[in-house]
């Protein structure tokens, strides 16, 4: 009975898992790719937008600063025009100008003061009287101011304690330099421009850094970073190096604070305009968008997996049903059927399976019936065989008893014990004796064969001497050699152990049968008995120079009652049981018999046997 194959499938080999995984992979790969591409595009766009926004703010600030500077210059120009309109005496010019500069300075938010100093640097008049009398000849703008229009870069003015930005213009009376008109910008306006931080979030800022020692000219929006102190960053260095551009770099607060920055060199102010926003804040919207994208991707993946699971279930459930039915059938439940009412390929498969199951059920039923019949026949045959063997055994025994009596009496008669036989009578008695011996041998062979076939042959192993056996067999058959004038050669392998274990009777029957056959079918030449070692055992080989056995006969030569042909039986005599007995006994002893023969040249029968050596009771050898 074939055992049913179980339906256990390794977890990772299950179709449901594989199909679900396939759905997942097929869905995930494009989703991941699309998500990554979209996320990167969004990031690139965000970064680009941040830089663009910073640049826009930076440009706007620089334009506002330009406007502020331009406005100051216009106020200075206005002042210069008012001076030229009054070409009276210098004293009256100054007196008039004082009121003029006050009006101009009061009217403009771009400037704090307008003042005028003589070529020696002494302030002659000013919109702020405090400045009158001061000497500016050691101010950094002084020398340049005497020559041409000049804008002094912002500097921290010790006197006012504030950031100062001065624009100057020399004033001539004809060719004579009479002094320099100067305006002091309202740097609060600069702070106002810088502090307008629309679009810069919580961490964004714009500030000005002076080339003079990297000083901050406008305040940081962060506490602890004071004006007029040196700070540096990659953006500051780039700006002060005259560069315009954008970048992501560590802030002046700490290299660990990464900022998006736009840097711009403002030549007129000899300062860098920096517009920055912390990366963390700038990218917060991007991070949120990326999180949303990832969540969406996960949701889509989950939906795909769910749909994949459902579809896989639809596909694999009938397969499982068919599998379970197949397993049930394999376990002997031939009436198992798949209950599926579908019109698709799976429905067709189920119908085909059911048809197959019906066919299997029918065929199995027939086979079981045939098997039962065969078993019954086998039982009868065995019984017949047993009865035959028993009959043969009984018959043989019953036959042997009278034969023994015949043999006994003929032997007495031939021995001349009390009976005087005429030569003719003696010849007849000898014939009776010889035939009774042949009949007895025949019966013995029958008995052996019947015992073997009946399974009652019992081999008794005991220590025997191969050499002793050989001599014994030589003695028994020497009469045959002498009778036919054949040479009988016995070769014993000196390497053969002196004592081996074996059933002497069985060995003798094998050897005597083979020798008997050899002498029987050999008319001239010789017969050789060879006992020798072979790999893993030993052998008894009997070779002759007889008629040989044709190749077609070698297939049945060992069958019972078979000789090469019927004529040989008649010519050479014998029952045809000898070689069959040799083969059966050889196999019963764990060996076998083989034949080499050539017609007209002779035959070699070789019995190979396992070698068992008696190591203790050598003294019991034959």
């Amino acid at each position, binding site marked *: 009975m074939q055992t049913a194959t179980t339906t256990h499938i390794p977890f990772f080999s299950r179709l449901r898992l594989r199909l679900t995984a396939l759905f997942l992979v097929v869905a995930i790969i494009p989703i991941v790719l699309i998500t990554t591409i979209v996320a990167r595009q969004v990031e690139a766009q965000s970064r680009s937008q941040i830089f663009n926004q910073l640049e826009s703010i930076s440009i706007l600030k620089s334009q506002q600063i330009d406007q502020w500077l331009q406005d100051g210059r216009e106020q200075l120009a206005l002042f210069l025009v008012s001076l030229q309109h009054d070409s009276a005496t210098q004293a009256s010019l100054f007196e008039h100008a004082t009121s003029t500069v006050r009006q101009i300075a009061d009217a403009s938010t771009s400037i704090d003061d307008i003042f005028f100093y003589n070529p020696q*640097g*002494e302030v002659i008049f000013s919109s702020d*009287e*405090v400045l*009158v*009398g*001061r*000497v500016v*000849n*050691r*101010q*950094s*703008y002084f020398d340049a101011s005497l020559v041409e229009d000049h804008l*002094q*870069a912002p*500097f*921290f003015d*010790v*006197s006012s304690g504030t950031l100062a930005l001065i624009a100057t213009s020399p004033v001539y009376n004809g060719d004579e330099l009479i002094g320099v008109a100067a305006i002091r910008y309202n740097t609060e306006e600069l702070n106002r421009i810088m502090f307008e931080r629309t679009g810069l979030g919580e961490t964004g800022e714009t500030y000005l850094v002076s080339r*003079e*020692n990297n000083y901050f000219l406008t305040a940081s929006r962060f506490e602890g970073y004071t004006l*007029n102190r*040196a700070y540096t960053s990659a953006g500051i260095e780039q700006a002060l190096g005259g560069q315009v551009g954008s970048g992501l770099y560590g802030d002046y607060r700490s290299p660990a604070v990464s900022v998006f920055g736009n840097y711009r060199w403002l030549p007129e102010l000899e300062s860098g305009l920096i517009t920055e926003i912390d990366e963390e804040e700038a990218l917060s919207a991007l991070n949120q968008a990326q999180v949303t994208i990832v969540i969406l991707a996960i949701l889509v993946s989950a939906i795909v997996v769910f749909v994949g699971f459902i579809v896989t279930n639809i596909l694999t459930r009938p397969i499982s049903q068919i599998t379970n039915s197949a397993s049930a059938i394999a376990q002997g439940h031939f009436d198992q059927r798949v209950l599926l009412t579908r019109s698709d390929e799976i429905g067709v498969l189920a119908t085909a399976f059911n048809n197959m199951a019906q066919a299997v059920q029918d065929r199995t039923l027939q086979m079981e019936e045939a098997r039962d019949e065969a078993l019954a026949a086998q039982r009868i045959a065995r019984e017949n065989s047993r009865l035959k063997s028993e009959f043969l055994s009984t018959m043989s025994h019953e036959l042997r008893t009278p034969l023994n009596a015949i043999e006994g009496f003929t032997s007495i008669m031939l021995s001349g014990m009390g009976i005087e036989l005429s030569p003719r009578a003696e010849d007849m008695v000898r014939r009776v004796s010889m035939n009774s011996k042949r009949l007895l041998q025949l019966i013995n062979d029958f008995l052996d064969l019947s015992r073997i076939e009946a399974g009652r042959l019992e081999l008794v192993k005991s220590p025997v001497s191969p050499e002793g056996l050989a001599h014994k067999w030589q003695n028994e058959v020497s009469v045959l050699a002498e009778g036919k004038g054949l040479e009988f050669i016995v070769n014993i392998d000196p390497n053969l152990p002196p004592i081996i274990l074996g059933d002497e009777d069985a060995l003798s029957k094998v050897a005597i049968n083979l020798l008997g056959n050899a002498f029987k079918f050999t008319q001239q030449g010789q017969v050789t008995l060879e006992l020798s070692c072979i790999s893993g055992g030993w052998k008894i080989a009997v070779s002759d120079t007889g008629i040989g056995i044709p190749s077609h006969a070698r297939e049945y030569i060992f069958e019972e009652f078979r000789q090469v042909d019927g004529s040989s039986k008649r010519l050479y005599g014998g029952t045809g049981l000898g070689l069959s007995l040799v083969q059966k006994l050889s196999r019963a002893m764990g060996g076998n018999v083989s034949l080499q023969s050539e017609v007209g040249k002779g035959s070699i029968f070789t019995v190979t046997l396992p070698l068992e050596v008696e190591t203790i009771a050598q003294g019991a050898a034959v």
Partner: protein
Amino acid sequence: MKRIVPVIITIILISLVACSPTQVATPTPAPTAVSIQLSWINEYSSSVFHTAVRNGHFAEQNLEATLIEAGFNDAGFIDPIQAVLNGEAEFALSNSASLIEARAAGQPVVAIASVLQRSPLAVISLPEAGITRPEDLAGHTVSVADGGARAVYETLLLTQNIDASTVNTVARTSFGIEPLINGEVDAMVAWIINEGVAVEEAGFDPQFILMSDYGVDTYDFVVFTTETMIAEHPETVRGVVTAVREGAQDVVDNPAQSIENTLTYNSELVQAEQLRRLEATIPLMNVPGHQLGGMDAEVWQFTHDFLVERGILTEPVDVSEVYTLEFLPNDAA
């Protein structure tokens, strides 16, 4: 006696610093020992030198600098000029007026750099006095210490065409600011970087008339040495000027760290007070158009001229001999 303890401590500290591993980075040849006589005790006003030593700028010049603080000892005020002339120090700090006076007295001292580019001297007042420009001084009481400060003050009045008799100028007898904040005087002539900050610390809003704004400018914290040193060891002089300039740059860049350097020389100082004063000093050190340590000929000339006009110098001297720009970078103003 009160001054002796910090002096001893300072000397010990200087000795320790001089012997510390960071100071004995000994390139070959062996560093040249130089001693620098400060003009006052170890405090913010000498932070440039403390920082130059502590940050290794003297060592970079293969110099082993020893700083000697000044102030008062049992013998009285320690005069840096006399210390250099006596051979107690190779270099020292003084001011432009004192150095011109020393040259006039035949003493071979030569200025080589000036830590301050503008004088910190100002007329300091409170807002209620209404003193925003020199002419506002008329009718007010102003306290001025005798000596150089008074000469500068009188020069201011002179250059601004103010009749000195209209101002009630009184002698300043206290180093403190109490007379001003107590209303005993309307204004006082003092340093914005010291008394000016002190008035702010006292909770007032000081008004300044900065002398230098009116062209009355002199040099303070001037590094000088002797003609002999310049003639015989010009590389040492150049090394000192370079180290001082780099120390000044460190102070400008990082005043807080500089004050920490100063505190290692004088642990009795109050760090916050010192930092405020140093931060007030930096704008006078680092002035647009003037490099650190630089000197202008016109300031020296002005100083000389007002000394002559004030009668402090009886005979004019050759101002160009009082200072040299030789050891400053070529673009020194």
